[in-house]
């Protein structure tokens, strides 16, 4: 379809605001658009008007909104107030979005100026703002300062009196520093073992440095845990941010942490660090922050971003202060020592002599009657002055034993009378001379006299008591009974009257004088001597005694004995007041006795001599001779009496009694006897027997006796003896008594056997460890019993070579333990089984153990030694050294920390446990081998455990089965089965406690654990 339209004709009118528009181009564009809408539009533009108002309208239509918005914005930008409001609305957001560094840099000068200005204007504002920040910081700083002061005070006090203290004082004086500073410098011994730099944001470890040979667990975990604990404390106690947990102390270890902006530095210090270390650590932290602030802030766990930090931390670890050994002032020390030795020696000597002197003085002080008033030591000499009682000990005599040189003691003693009771007592005893009936004693500081005394003595004592009363001790004489002279006289007289042979005729007392008269037998007691025993003054006694002969039987007996001198064969005695003589006497003595009896008959006691038989010499001789004749071995040939002399001849056997000895007691005067004896050998059986006994030396088992005039030998004897006895019997056969030896049994074979036996016994007795208690031979058999040490030689074996028939030996041996060192050593070797590194030897009867052994073995040896010492055997274990078991212990710990785990309900460990089992087997073998070398046996207890699911009985059997399985698996890996012990613990020894309601059970508890036992 073709349509005809008017060509577009652009307004020629120049619009007020369309200048600059390429009208031609616009017209072309519009025609193009029109064609696109209607392809049949063939409008052409012809000529373009200079201006067209429609254009303006079009513009309004197209971009009118934008134009008004633009004008609003232009207006906004032009008006400062409105612009400020608008920017103010977006400023916080814009600041937040701005790059931090750039914003910081841009703002810094303005903020600084603003702060400056604010302070100038009113400092309080900023102080108020910063107050919450400063306060904790100041508080912390003051706290540290106080700690520092206390520490220095403590240390100073501790060392103020020690040798170090002296040395350090010198150093303080020399260097011009304070004493406490020097003390701190020397006494603080510490070592920084670890330094952790920990990100504050995440708790991740940035860097970790450790000192040489310090060990710790995984530092990453530690640093996280440290920051967790810091968080924990912070949360728990509502502490403000930034004040970190700055000190944790655990025994020797201290953790010091210093909190920075982005990172916390934690130092682990062993020992006693000075407070200044805080500052050092803080400096390091500060330096790290200065150098790597941005990297720290952005730290995301990649420590490679912070390369130089470790070097910085290293400086902390190098900070350590051990007790310095360098530059020790040996020379000074030597000089000081020399001076000290000389001074010490001198002061010791003077101290010693002063000490001895003091000992002497204290001896003097305790002496009664010695008062030391002054004493001094000057120039090595001792001066002492004081008072001494003449009755007191001599001060000089007290010197020996005190080691004080007497020549250097200058004493000046004044005598005085001590009023100490014992001295007063001595003086009273000397001056009053109390009679025996008076006893003086000191009771509670008083002198007490007790007993009986005469009035005069009592008066003297009273005078002494009065004298003493002035300052002295009390002298109490109230206990002395006054025995007047008359009383004592009467006592004396009545005593005399009771005495036999004394007759008191008269006695009286006149003017204090005593008179006595009476009779006394010379044989009676002497009245004078009796007087001495009484307290009667002999000078006042006037005695007049007449001698008389008392007719009392005992006096008469004495007198008769003295006058008649009866022979031994006569005995005189008093029988019922009669004097009776009995026995034998010669006619002459009997005549004298009869005369005496006649004299006595006038008033005296009867003297009865009818019991004395008259014996004449001839009679007595005949009695003697007949007695000789009855003696065997004595043959009286002839005897006669001529002119009062006695003659006798005959034979006597040397073995018979001596005739001379028989003479005594016969009352025959030996001077009148003339004997002549010839020796001969009597063949009377008893003499023959004696001679045989002497010549044959019969054996113990042969008994000789006389039976019906024959001499009979009975018993047992060896053939040699029997031969000799037979020869003797032949000799005797000529006229002598018969000697019958038929009853002697020949015991030679037995005797020889016995000899052999004795040899065997003596051999046994010489054996160490064998004690023969009893041995006998009976019926040709030998019985022996005793003790034998199991380690001693076998008694049976010793029989060989002794010719003793073993079949005839009956032994009974009890085993015992010999204390002979050799046996003790054998036994110890068997019982203690000492390791190869230990040697037992006997040195001078003592058992000495030398070498190295485990502590367990040593304590067993010690126990054995203690036991043996009770038996008197010395086992010296002092030279044993303990074997170093550190390595073994480490291995043991490794073994004991190993567990084999199991799946639920399984008794065979899963394949993942294979490496654990392999390692465990190797460790067990190594341990067993090392233990063996150290002389101990290692055994390993495999304990099976189960979790708590299921029935208890089932758990018990599962746990045991697990242990058995592990044992088998270890055995398969070459661990000797006898070293492995097995037990099931069921649920009773859980590694971790389990909730009873747990249905799955705790896998940690399904395990087999290992414990190591050393035997």
């Amino acid at each position, binding site marked *: 379809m073709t349509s005809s339209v008017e060509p577009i004709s652009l307004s020629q009118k120049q619009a007020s605001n369309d200048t600059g528009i390429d009208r031609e181009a616009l017209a072309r564009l519009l025609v193009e658009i029109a064609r696109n809408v209607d392809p049949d539009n063939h409008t052409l533009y012809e000529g373009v008007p200079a201006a067209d108002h429609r254009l303006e309208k079009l513009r309004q239509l197209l971009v009118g909104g934008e134009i008004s918005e633009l004008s609003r914005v232009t207006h906004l930008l032009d008006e400062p107030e409105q612009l400020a409001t608008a920017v103010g609305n977006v400023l916080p957001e814009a600041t937040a979005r701005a790059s931090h560094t750039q914003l910081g840099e841009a703002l810094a000068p303005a903020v600084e100026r603003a702060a400056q200005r604010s302070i100038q204007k009113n400092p309080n504002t900023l102080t108020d703002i910063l107050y919450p920040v400063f306060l904790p910081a100041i508080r912390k700083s003051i706290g540290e300062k106080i700690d520092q002061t206390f520490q220095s005070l403590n240390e100073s006090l501790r060392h103020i009196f020690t040798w170090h203290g002296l040395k350090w004082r010198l150093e303080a004086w020399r260097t011009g520093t304070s004493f406490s500073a020097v003390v701190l410098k020397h006494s603080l011994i510490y070592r920084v073992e670890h330094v952790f730099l920990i*990100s*504050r*944001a*995440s*708790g*991740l*470890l940035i860097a970790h440095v450790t000192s040489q040979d310090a060990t710790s*667990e*995984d530092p*990453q*975990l*530690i640093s*996280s*845990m440290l920051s*967790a*604990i810091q*968080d*924990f404390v*912070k*949360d728990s106690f509502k502490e403000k941010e930034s004040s970190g947990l700055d000190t944790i102390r655990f025994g020797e270890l201290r953790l010091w942490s210093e909190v920075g902006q982005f990172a916390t530095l934690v130092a682990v210090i062993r020992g006693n660090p000075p407070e200044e270390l805080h500052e050092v650590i803080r400096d390091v932290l500060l330096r790290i922050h200065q150098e790597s602030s941005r990297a720290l802030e952005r730290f*995301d*766990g*990649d*420590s*490679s971003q912070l390369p130089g930090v470790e070097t910085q931390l290293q400086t902390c670890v190098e900070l350590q202060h051990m007790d310095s050994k360098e530059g020790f002032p040996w020379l000074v020390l030597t000089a000081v020592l020399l001076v000290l030795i000389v001074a010490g020696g001198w002061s010791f000597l003077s101290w010693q002599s002063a000490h001895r002197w003091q000992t002497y003085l204290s001896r003097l002080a305790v002496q009664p009657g010695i008062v030391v008033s002054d004493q001094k030591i000057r120039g090595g000499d001792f001066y002492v002055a004081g008072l001494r009682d003449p009755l007191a000990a001599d001060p000089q005599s007290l010197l020996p034993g005190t080691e004080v040189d007497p020549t250097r003691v200058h004493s000046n003693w004044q005598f005085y009378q001590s009023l100490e009771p014992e001295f007063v007592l001595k003086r009273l005893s000397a001056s009053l001379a109390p009679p025996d009936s008076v006893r003086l004693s000191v009771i509670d500081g008083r002198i007490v006299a007790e007993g009986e005394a005469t009035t005069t003595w009592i008066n003297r004592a009273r005078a002494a008591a009065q004298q003493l009363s002035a300052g002295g001790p009390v002298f109490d004489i109230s206990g002395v009974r006054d025995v007047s002279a008359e009383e004592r006289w009467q006592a004396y007289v009545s005593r005399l009257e009771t005495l036999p042979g004394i007759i008191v005729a008269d006695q009286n007392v006149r003017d204090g004088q005593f008179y006595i008269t009476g009779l006394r037998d010379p044989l009676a007691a002497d009245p004078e001597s009796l007087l001495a025993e009484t307290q009667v003054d002999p000078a006042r006694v006037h005695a007049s005694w007449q001698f008389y002969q008392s007719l009392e039987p005992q006096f008469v007996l004495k007198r008769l004995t003295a006058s008649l001198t009866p022979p031994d064969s006569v005995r005189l005695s008093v029988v019922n007041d009669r004097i009776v003589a009995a026995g034998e006497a010669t006619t002459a003595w009997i005549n004298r006795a009869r005369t005496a009896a006649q004299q006595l008959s006038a008033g005296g006691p009867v003297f009865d001599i009818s019991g004395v038989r008259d014996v004449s010499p001839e009679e007595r001789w005949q009695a003697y001779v007949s007695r000789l004749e009855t003696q065997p071995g004595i043959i009286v040939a002839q005897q006669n009496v001529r002119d009062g002399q006695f003659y006798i001849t005959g034979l006597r056997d040397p073995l018979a009694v001596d005739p001379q000895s028989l003479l005594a007691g016969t009352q025959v005067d030996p001077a009148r006897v003339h004997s002549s004896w010839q020796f001969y050998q009597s063949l009377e059986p008893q003499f023959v027997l004696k001679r045989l006994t002497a010549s044959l030396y019969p054996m113990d088992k042969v008994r000789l006796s006389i039976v019906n005039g024959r001499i009979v030998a009975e018993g047992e004897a060896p053939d040699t003896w029997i031969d000799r006895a037979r020869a003797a019997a032949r000799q005797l056969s000529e006229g002598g008594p018969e000697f019958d030896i038929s009853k002697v049994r020949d015991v030679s074979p037995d005797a020889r056997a016995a000899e052999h036996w004795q040899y065997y016994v003596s051999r046994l007795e010489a054996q160490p460890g064998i004690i023969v208690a009893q041995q006998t031979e009976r019926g040709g058999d030998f019985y022996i019993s005793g003790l034998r040490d199991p380690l001693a030689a076998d008694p049976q074996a010793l029989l060989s070579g002794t010719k003793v028939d073993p079949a005839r030996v009956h032994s009974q041996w009890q085993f015992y333990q010999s204390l002979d060192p050799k046996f003790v050593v054998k036994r110890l070797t068997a019982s203690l089984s000492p390791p190869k590194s230990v040697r037992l030897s006997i040195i001078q009867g003592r058992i000495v153990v030398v070498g190295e052994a485990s502590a367990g073995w040593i304590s067993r040896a010690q126990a054995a030694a203690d036991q043996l010492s009770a038996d008197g055997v010395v086992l010296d274990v002092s030279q044993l050294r303990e074997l170093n078991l550190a390595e073994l212990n480490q291995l043991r710990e490794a073994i004991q920390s190993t567990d084999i785990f199991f*799946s*639920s309900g399984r008794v065979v460990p899963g394949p993942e446990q294979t490496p654990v089992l392999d390692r465990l087997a190797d460790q067990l073998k190594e341990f067993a081998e090392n233990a063996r070398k150290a002389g101990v046996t290692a055994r390993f207890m495999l304990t099976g455990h189960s979790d708590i699911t299921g029935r208890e009985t089932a758990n018990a059997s599962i746990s045991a089965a697990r242990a058995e399985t592990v044992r088998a698996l270890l055995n398969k890996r070459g661990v000797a089965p006898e070293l492995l012990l097995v037990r099931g613990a069921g649920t009773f020894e859980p590694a*971790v406690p389990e*909730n009873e309601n747990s*249905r*799955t059970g705790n*896998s*940690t508890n399904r395990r087999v654990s290992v414990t190591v036992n050393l035997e």
Partner: protein
Amino acid sequence: MLQKKICMLGGFAVGKTSLVRRFVQSIFSENYLTTVGVKIDKKSVAFPDKTVDLILWDLAGEDDIGSFRVSYVRGATGLVLVADGTRPATLAVALTLRERCEAEFGAMPFILLFNKSDLTDRWAIPEGEIDELKQRGWQVYLTSALSGEHVDDAFRQLASMVAN
């Protein structure tokens, strides 16, 4: 040395500690959990070009979310959310804990573990629900501390998520 702090979150008795115990390096006693409320363990995951040490903060599992110590999560770069597959409520707890962390410290990568997958008879999380979670782009694993199933995979996944 590249390390990342990872927090393990989950309700009471979901088995976080068991997961950690068997598969990681540990030097601290489990007592820390009850005393300090956190126990720290390490899991090293090796990649061809690097090794990432995951420092695992095992936070004490508590059903009382109010007492959760959120401050322990500061600085963490990833989370391990642990729920008990036999107790659906524990999923809600884990997710709430995550929300609390993200509210405090912003979003961070995480993995979600449904633990105790060995207890199939008592399993209580429908398959559909797990699929739905996976469709959100979440890394979800069914793990068993007992058998070790998927545990290593899960940690490896998390390591790769936080290391890049």
